[in-house]
């Protein structure tokens, strides 16, 4: 009977940790899943079978309930719906099971630690980069994620308000895409027909990378960085494909959302929680800051801006991933 | 029934149970009824006759509140008709057996019988056991032997029709409409229905009775109304209107001589009953479809129209369908124009030269949403252009030829077939079968629901087909259809029980179809009048009644 498997017998004595993957069909979350898997082995952790909630909060809740019933002593989740997880958090708190929330900050309910980079900071960083690159003039398209996703919304809102305050000369065209690259590409194509002199693009996720490059290529607008007519493009996530594009000069920059650190510190805090350790707000030993939330703590991991200058930095997770 | 009071004169001041006048109803551009009227006195059996599409069923739908007339007034026993949409109020005035099936296949017999009145009040739970026993009692009145808890889908067509009839008659209405109730019944079924109707007549229930079998009108009704081209033509006492006069009123043409085509007794080689010449277009040898028919041996020669007679459950329809490739048999031999034919393969049958008019045109015959041209050429799409193409021009020409040939009344070849009247729809199905110029035409109940004129025409067309050097097999239980055949093979309970050369009498054939012919077969049926199964006189008498409108001349 196989309640607990992944790790070897060394881990058998340790308290079990339940881990849920938010989805299996995106690059970022797959990298995360891989890091989780290798880190579990490396650290000799005892985990319950890793579950997948397929981007459905009700499945997440169901899976957490299974963790509860199969004796998890800590839970690692990445709730893509920060509201609907609240009652589950309360339920786990009642049973004294600590929760580490990756990537999103639950609206309420007790969390032991939130492990994430600040998504508003992504939007702001992108805005500042583009604003400077365009000298505060021109027009940029934003390939927005889903309006119903908190991360997408944070990025969009931060980007828009930063542009409005710091670079009022830049016109912003928000394009809602529901995280669908085909929709993004088609709307961008329409926008290009309307405003052929578009000067910049902010893609809120790496999924738009290839479609956007293909589109610009076919329109003859894909000029390398530094040549006249270049459209400044900044992406978000930090997957290896983006680094390739940065090296080729096809895009300017990306924001590295640290999948490796997400995995590493999610497991780190889960283990710490099981062992009963506590943390305080303030700077950490790994270059981040823990801040106090109303319902727990948040370790704000660094999300560096990657440009041609630092694209080959070995410490970037996108440079370490298999292949 | 003879002792029944004649309401006519005596009841002059009586208010008619239903009176409609000045009724006009059109569907888009089609005028189905034009200033039509009808009046049925209490206790009267009133027949409504007319050709296909004359507007009879439309009148029925207006009289039962299913549709609203464009103009005209309608009263029941002097009171104005209920509001449109208040179907329950309509139900209390009039009950109806519709032409189209109105039972629900997935529900049980009991529930269908008491649909929408399973319980006295809408919030009172249904008592299923009581309902079933009520249903059983009701069915017993018609000697229909079915379990009330069986789904309708599992019943035979005839049993279903009896459920419909029993349901309509069980409302206790004083006025009942029956739209072609006999079309789906065999002779014995009709007899049972008529017995029941006469019983109700005696209790003073009024009927409006629609049928294409004029003999039934003479048997059952006291007055008759004729519609033609959406108009009221006449209303008269049945006794005062001879058969020819009635047909003349329906068709608008005068009638001379016998109405239906008959086989000329001088038909070629028709006396050579036993011979199986190489000229055989169809040969069946010991063909068996377990549970349906057994060891059927039969031959159809060139130039012949052969009838395959048999009541419901005799297996005759399955034999016809097997020849057309609908069923696979493992026992026995089937050959068309001398070559053995693989059974259960419709395209193979088609290639071998079998044309097929299926039993139910709505279910198996027509693609209702498509045009007349398309339906008529469905079997010959390989002949309408090179390289597997179907050229619209050739389709049109071909279809026009079929339309002219079969005298199909349609605005043009591109009209959707669903917009034709029943008789013309049937002609389209026949056109589809004849389009391949088949060596053998297999037609199952080809004149079902078709008016007297169209019937005559279709039967004539089958004969013409045979006379052009091919052959036809007509599978039917209608004496009119069979009378036009050179030879009739009768089946009973899955076996061939006799063969009749032209010149047979109705009595002989009916007796054979009922298993009381020359052959043994012990028939355990309960005919009320027939105390002694060997009393030929009473048989003849029954058969006369059963034989439909053909029996009079």
């Amino acid at each position, binding site marked *: *009977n*196989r*309640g607990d498997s992944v790790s070897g017998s060394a881990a058998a004595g340790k308290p079990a940790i339940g881990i849920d*993957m938010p989805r299996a069909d995106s690059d970022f979350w797959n990298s995360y899943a891989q890091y989780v898997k290798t880190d579990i082995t490396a650290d000799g952790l005892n985990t*319950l*079978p890793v*579950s*997948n909630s397929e981007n459905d*909060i009700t499945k997440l809740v*169901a*899976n957490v*309930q*299974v963790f509860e*019933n*199969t004796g998890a002593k800590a839970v690692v989740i990445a709730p893509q*719906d920060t*509201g*609907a*997880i609240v*009652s589950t958090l*309360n339920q786990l708190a009642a049973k004294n099971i600590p929760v580490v929330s990756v990537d999103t900050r639950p*609206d*309420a309910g007790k969390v032991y630690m939130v492990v994430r980079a600040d998504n508003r900071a992504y939007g702001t960083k992108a805005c500042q980069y583009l604003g400077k690159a365009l000298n505060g003039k021109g027009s940029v398209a934003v390939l927005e994620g889903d*309006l*119903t996703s*908190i991360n997408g*919304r944070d990025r969009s809102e931060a980007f828009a308000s930063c542009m409005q305050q710091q670079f009022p000369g830049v016109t912003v065209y928000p394009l809602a895409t529901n995280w669908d690259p085909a929709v993004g590409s088609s709307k961008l194509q329409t926008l290009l027909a309307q405003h052929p002199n578009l000067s910049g693009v902010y893609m809120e996720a790496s999924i738009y990378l290839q479609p956007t490059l293909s589109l610009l290529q076919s329109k003859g607008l894909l000029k390398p960085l530094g040549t006249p007519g270049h459209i400044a493009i900044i992406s978000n996530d930090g997957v290896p494909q983006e680094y390739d594009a940065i090296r080729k000069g096809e895009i300017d920059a990306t924001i590295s959302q640290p999948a490796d650190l997400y995995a590493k510190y999610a497991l780190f805090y889960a283990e710490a929680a099981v062992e009963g350790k506590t943390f305080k707000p303030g700077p950490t030993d790994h270059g981040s800051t823990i801040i106090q939330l109303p319902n727990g703590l948040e370790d704000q991991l660094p999300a560096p801006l990657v440009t041609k200058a630092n694209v080959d930095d070995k410490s970037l997770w996108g440079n370490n991933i298999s292949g | 029934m003879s002792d029944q009071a004649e309401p006519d004169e005596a009841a002059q001041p009586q208010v008619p149970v239903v009176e409609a006048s000045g009724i006009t109803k059109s569907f888009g551009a089609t005028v189905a009824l034009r200033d039509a009227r009808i009046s049925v006195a209490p206790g009267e059996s009133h027949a409504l006759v007319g050709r296909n599409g004359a507007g009879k069923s439309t009148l029925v739908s207006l009289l039962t509140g*299913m549709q609203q007339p464009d103009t005209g007034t309608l009263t029941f026993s002097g009171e104005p008709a209920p509001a449109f*949409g208040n*179907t329950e109020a309509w139900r209390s005035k009039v009950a*109806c057996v519709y032409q189209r*099936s*109105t039972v*629900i296949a*997935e*529900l049980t017999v009991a529930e269908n019988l008491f*649909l*929408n009145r*399973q319980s006295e009040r*809408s*919030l009172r*739970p*249904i008592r299923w056991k009581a309902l079933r026993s009520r249903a059983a009692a009701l069915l017993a009145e018609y000697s229909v*032997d079915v*379990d009330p*808890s*069986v789904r309708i889908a599992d019943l*035979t067509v005839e049993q279903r029709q009896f459920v419909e009839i029993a349901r309509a008659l069980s409302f206790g209405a004083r006025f009942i409409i029956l739209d072609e109730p006999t079309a789906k019944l065999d002779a014995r079924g009709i007899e049972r229905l008529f017995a029941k109707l006469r019983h109700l007549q005696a209790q003073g229930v009024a009927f409006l009775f629609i049928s294409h079998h004029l003999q039934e009108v003479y048997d059952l009704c006291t007055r008759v109304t004729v519609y033609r081209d959406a108009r009221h033509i006449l209303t008269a006492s049945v006794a005062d209107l001879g058969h020819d006069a009635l047909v003349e009123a329906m068709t608008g043409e005068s009638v001379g001589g016998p109405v239906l085509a008959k086989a000329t007794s001088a038909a070629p080689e028709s006396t050579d009953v036993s011979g199986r010449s190489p000229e055989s277009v169809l040969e069946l040898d010991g063909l068996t479809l377990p*549970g*349906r028919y057994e060891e059927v041996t039969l031959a159809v020669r060139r130039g012949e129209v052969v009838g395959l007679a048999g009541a419901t*459950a*005799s*297996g005759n*329809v*399955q034999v016809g369908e097997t020849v057309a490739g609908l*069923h696979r048999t493992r026992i026995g031999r089937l050959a068309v124009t001398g070559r053995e034919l693989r059974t259960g393969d419709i395209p193979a049958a088609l290639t071998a030269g079998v044309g097929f008019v299926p*039993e*139910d045109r709505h*279910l198996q015959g027509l693609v209702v949403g498509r045009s007349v041209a398309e339906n008529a050429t469905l079997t010959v799409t390989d002949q309408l252009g090179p390289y597997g193409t179907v050229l619209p021009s050739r389709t049109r020409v071909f279809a026009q030829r079929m339309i002219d040939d079969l005298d199909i009344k349609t605005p043009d070849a591109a009209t959707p077939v669903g917009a034709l009247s029943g008789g013309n729809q049937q002609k389209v199905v026949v056109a589809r079968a004849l389009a391949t110029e088949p060596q053998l035409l297999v037609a199952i109940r080809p004149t079902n629901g078709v008016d007297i004129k169209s019937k005559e025409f279709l039967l004539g067309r089958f004969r013409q087909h045979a006379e052009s050097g091919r052959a036809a097999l007509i599978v039917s239980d209608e004496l009119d259809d069979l009378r036009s055949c050179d030879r009739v093979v009768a089946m009973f*309970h899955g076996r061939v029980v006799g063969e009749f050369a032209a010149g047979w009498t109705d009595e002989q054939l009916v007796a054979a179809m009922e298993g009381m012919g020359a052959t043994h077969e012990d028939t355990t049926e309960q005919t009320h009048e027939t105390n002694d199964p060997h009393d030929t006189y009473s048989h003849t008498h029954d058969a006369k009644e059963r034989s439909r409108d053909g029996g009079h001349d």
Partner: protein
Amino acid sequence: MAATTDTGVATTAPAAEPVAPRRRGFDLARYRDLSLVPVLLVLGVIGFIASPAFLTTANLLGVAQQSTELSLLVLGEALILIVGRMDLSLESTIGVAPVIAIWLVLPTSGGRFQGLGLLPTWTAIPVCLLVGALIGALNGFLILKLRLNGFIVTLGGLTMLRGLQVAISQGQSIVEIPNSFLYLGETSWLGAPAAVWICLVLFILGGAALAWLRHGRALYAIGGNAEAARTAGIRVDRITWVVLIIGSVLAAFAGILYTGHYGSISADQGSGWIFQVFAATVIGGVSLNGGRGTIFGALTGVLTLQLVVNVMTLAGVPPLWNQFLNGAIIIVALIISRFASGEQE
């Protein structure tokens, strides 16, 4: 879809002979609703083997509670399918109805989400149900009066209502939930969540109405043959309309339970559920063509789907193979139930 061979058999078979075999076929058909029971048993056995936690009260009650919202949608859809219609927009109603209700009752300031404060807070539940009723009535109007194709109208409705919800909630999750919602979503009665009891009662009511009430039976008649139902005096359009409204009200009620259960409404609440709803309803034996199926069968469909997820999690199926197995199991369940019931479709 009957083959010609079958038609002939039914039409003309000698009356006496086929009664015996026919009766057998009929009995099977009567128990068609139970055809998923073997599937449930198989899942139970697998779950038991996979983990000792499977057969605990906590786990089974958990499965039951997680089934509540979906099961209410399935109840509504089953009624609508039986009457011969379809409603895809239920998946949006479950989100938009509570959002509109909360928007109308929340104060104009204070929380993160600002409402209109038009109505007192206690009206939240009735308003939510009323919104559901209005959506159902609108669908009914478009389908029955304007005679638009129901599939596509409700598909458009699905998109439109979801869009409305996004517009009203600005795409954010709303966590300021009225207490009445929370109460329903969180309380336990007699050791089981209130939502489970409520669903059970609604299913029993629905099942009983379909089995023993005249108007309930009318659904089968209408779905089986609307024209024939009309001739029997059944008010086809009115009943269909009422059923569409009931379906939407049930979806709105599912929205209340969902909101209470999860403590918030996200803008994509229920998104993608309609597939699940159809899967559960149809593997539960309700015909897409109307006139066939039972509420109980639909319930076994929901339980099957939920148990599949539960057992897969317990068995530790690798995340990457999750979805594949899910789809494969639906098909296998369909095949098992097809052969268990001995009938097609």
